[in-house]
């Protein structure tokens, strides 16, 4: 049953992406991208990744959509018709897809409890984590403590983007002064 729900949601996501690829109205594209993210968040809930789902809903469906709409508002644009036949992109995509088919074919099946990822490293988090960190939510414990350094890196990425956007979009000091003058 759980597998059925997940697979149905995944199928919906595939449909929304196909529609998105064929749409040229950018507003519709952004709305579809938001829908895609929302479906993704739902899939994540079904996959027990509640922390991730919450983030994806807030970030993918929320922040990203707002940012895209904001940028679209500043750019006011409609996608032009593609000028040439996309043979090269198709070839690149097909090759990537084939390597992925090849690579994922032998991977453990869905919900295989004997898969290596359930046998190595993770068991310690689940068995010892609450005692070692005193925190029942293992995602928080791994995120902030066991792999806290990754999270420092992640915060730094956000910081980099923020400071970078300031550098790119800030108007000169002078214009700000002009605005306050009258």
């Amino acid at each position: 049953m759980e597998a059925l729900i997940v697979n149905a949601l995944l199928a919906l996501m595939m449909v929304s992406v196909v529609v998105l690829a064929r749409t040229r109205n950018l507003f519709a594209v952004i709305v579809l991208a938001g829908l895609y993210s929302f479906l993704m968040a739902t899939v994540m809930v079904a996959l027990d990744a509640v922390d991730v789902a919450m983030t994806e809903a807030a970030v993918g469906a929320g922040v990203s959509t707002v940012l895209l709409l904001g940028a679209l508002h500043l750019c006011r644009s409609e996608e032009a018709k593609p000028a040439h036949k996309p043979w090269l992109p198709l070839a690149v995509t097909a090759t990537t897809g084939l390597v992925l088919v090849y690579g994922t074919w032998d991977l453990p099946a869905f919900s295989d409890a004997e898969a290596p990822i359930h046998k190595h490293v993770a068991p310690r988090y689940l068995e010892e984590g609450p005692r070692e960190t005193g925190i029942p939510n293992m995602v928080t414990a791994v995120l902030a403590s066991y792999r806290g350094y990754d999270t420092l890196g992640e915060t730094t990425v956000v910081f980099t983007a923020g400071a970078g956007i300031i550098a790119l979009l800030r108007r000169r000091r002078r214009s700000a002064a002009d605005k306050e003058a009258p």
Partner: protein
Amino acid sequence: MNAHEHLPALQVVLPLAAAPLAVLLRDRVAAFVPVLAATWAAFAISVLMWLQVGESGPISYALGSWAPPWGIEYRVDSLSSLLLMLVSGVAAVVLPYGRASIEREIRQDNHALFYAMFALCLTGLLGIVITGDAFNLFVFLEISSLSSYVLIALGRDRRALVAAYQYLIMGTIRATFIVIGVGLLYLKTGTLNLADMGVRLQEMTSHRPVLAALAFLTVGISLKLALFPLHQWLPNAYAYAPSAVSAFLAATATKVSVYALLRFYFSVFGETAVFRRLPMEDFMLILALAGMFVASTVAIFQRDLKRLFAYSSVAQIGYIVLGISFDSVTGLTATIAHLVNHAVTKGGLFLLLGAAMAGMGGITLARVHGLGRVMPLTAFGIVLCGLSLIGVPGTAGFVSKWYLILAALEKGQWWLVFLIVASSLLAVAYVWRFVEAAYFHAPRADLAAVREAPAGLAIPAWIMVGATIWFGLDTSVTVGSAARAAGMLLRVAS
């Protein structure tokens, strides 16, 4: 607290801390101080660790005191310590240059942010080199990538924006390829620690997901490496970025990618998986040769000097990959030595180009006519670096080419020796184009009064040029470390 034990963490964390400080301080003079202090400290730390590794072997550091593979491990060995020294050393030279050059190239209220981005880029590159964890590598890769997009976009020309955007698309695709590769490996092994992965992969080197992971990681890293034919993003990025940024990225970014490739090939997959089971040798050989010849030829026909030498970088990456394809200690020694040699050569070259641009207002070949007359030192320095690109004895470039030739001879591939020499002739051609413009033409009337570059630009540039000559004469640091690192990668006692 014993500072000595914590050098691996401080190596990365000090430049990282300098970035928010620079943002907080806001003032362009005040922001420079912590970034400079952190950059120089990072260089000092890398030298200390290099000495320590030479004496007592690899250093492992458990961040958060969580033992690997549950926590994240920093690992410094003979290869990573050399790269750390290279990256932080180049940064230590380029940053003071940046202070002088951005006065002309970047508007003043962005200077503090420029320093912050520089510190972040350095942090990211150091983090990639020092980490022993596959996912942590991705995180620091993104720090260095995001900051370099911004640094490139700060260039004066509007084309810098487009170059940065294209680099962002390329960079994100490549990072996603790397995440896919790491994901496949994780699903097969259950671990993210590179060394642990290496051990667990031993028995499954022929499994399909592992081979697919190899493909994704190779393509992903080669994109960043600008390995021919995946190099398209590089010339624009280097050409329109601010001078200090071109110099820093040209000297370090591609080198760190080579490092990542070596790490995955030899420490994770293991040499047998990569070279015995797949025709990787031939594949890399072909790409390397194609890069050496096609990119050098394209370089000859460029009008803009930054673009010309950017294509030359693509060609030089060909030599670096050629060394890997030999799969021998001599070949890897050549590769690793060329990482360092090419870094100082190209670093010096781009710093001098920036100085020339500051004087002449542009660096198209037409504009630098008579550079040898108005800016004799700068022009001479460019020629010296050019000689190193060609591989003239007495320069750093010669040393690495010499080892490449030795490696080819070891394998009995005489025809390769011939090709290496032939491709050097192409380098003669593109360097000659500069010489012709600089020495055999009179400067344009309005540029005849241009003076030699100010000391703030000239001194850092000449430190790099000096290193180019020094590494050409004394090879104990470069080839010595490179041979040790190559022995370690191939698990041969040196």
